[in-house]
């Protein structure tokens, strides 16, 4: 299993906000493993999807030079279950960002209905950290390609966010 819990970005505004979708299907094993005979998307994996949406938003803001890790979820509320056939729309908005990390507000919607909402704190690993080698920035960019960030992303000047063009957005977002 690949640990990618969003299917595609549909909006990407550097340093500010990103929206991604997650399609829930009966073909996914985890639906069947959660409650026997009652397939639903586990809330923990919805939170992971929200964190991936926000984490890539925060990482891209720093041009993937920082290793961004999920540090804390001060608050999360689930309002309803996500069922097979649902399309979850994850929205992550940067509330604050600095050298140490970021705080992001995230929501999950099914159509117009608010399905879940969370506050997520990300930390930047410093270079002395023993686990720094777990994160290879180049892999992250590869995943970004898979997820279509570069197809929908735009930086402050309104131009597409491409791997080659990332440098021009450095320090531009979040203001």
């Amino acid at each position: 299993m690949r640990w990618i819990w969003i299917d595609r970005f549909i909006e990407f505004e550097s340093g500010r906000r990103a929206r991604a979708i997650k399609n829930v299907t009966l073909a996914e094993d985890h639906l069947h493993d959660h409650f026997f005979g009652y397939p639903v998307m586990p809330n923990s994996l919805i939170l992971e999807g929200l964190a991936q949406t926000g984490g890539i938003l925060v990482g891209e803001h720093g041009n993937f030079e920082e290793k961004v890790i999920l540090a804390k979820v001060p608050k999360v509320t689930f309002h309803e279950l996500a069922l097979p056939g649902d399309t979850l729309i994850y929205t992550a908005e940067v509330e604050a960002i600095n050298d140490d990390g970021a705080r992001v507000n995230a929501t999950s919607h099914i159509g117009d209905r608010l399905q879940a909402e969370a506050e997520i704190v990300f930390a930047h690993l410093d270079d002395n950290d023993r686990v720094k080698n777990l994160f290879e920035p180049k892999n992250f960019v590869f995943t970004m390609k898979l997820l279509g960030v570069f197809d929908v992303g735009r930086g402050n000047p309104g131009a597409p966010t491409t791997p080659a063009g990332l440098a021009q957005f450095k320090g531009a977002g979040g203001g």
Partner: protein
Amino acid sequence: MPTHDEILTKIRTALVEALGVDEDEVTPEATLTGDLGAESIDFLDIVFRLEKAFDIKIPRGELFPESIMTDPQYVKDGKFTQAGVDELRKRMPFADIEEFAKNPVAREFGNLFTVDMVAKYIESKVNVKA
């Protein structure tokens, strides 16, 4: 311009939300780590909340200068050196260093971080209404 009480109320809200504690636990003398259970990552969360609540910027390491602890010039054999204590006085004028300086063991360092210390820091950043 906020009053002292308004500042305390906003700090209390920030700590209740960041640490999941009850409002009545957030007394002026409560220590963030010892009494309120804050861990290192919570300090980042607290800084973000205070910045928003008071519309201020809190530079890295200004409110919680934890990096002093890992500098061998300032902390030796589990105790702050004279240079370390002087550095604390310089960098944390809003904290009650004198009591700590009598026996500056490193494990007591966290006790400097009280709700009252945060309030004094905020008051040094914003104009307070008398």
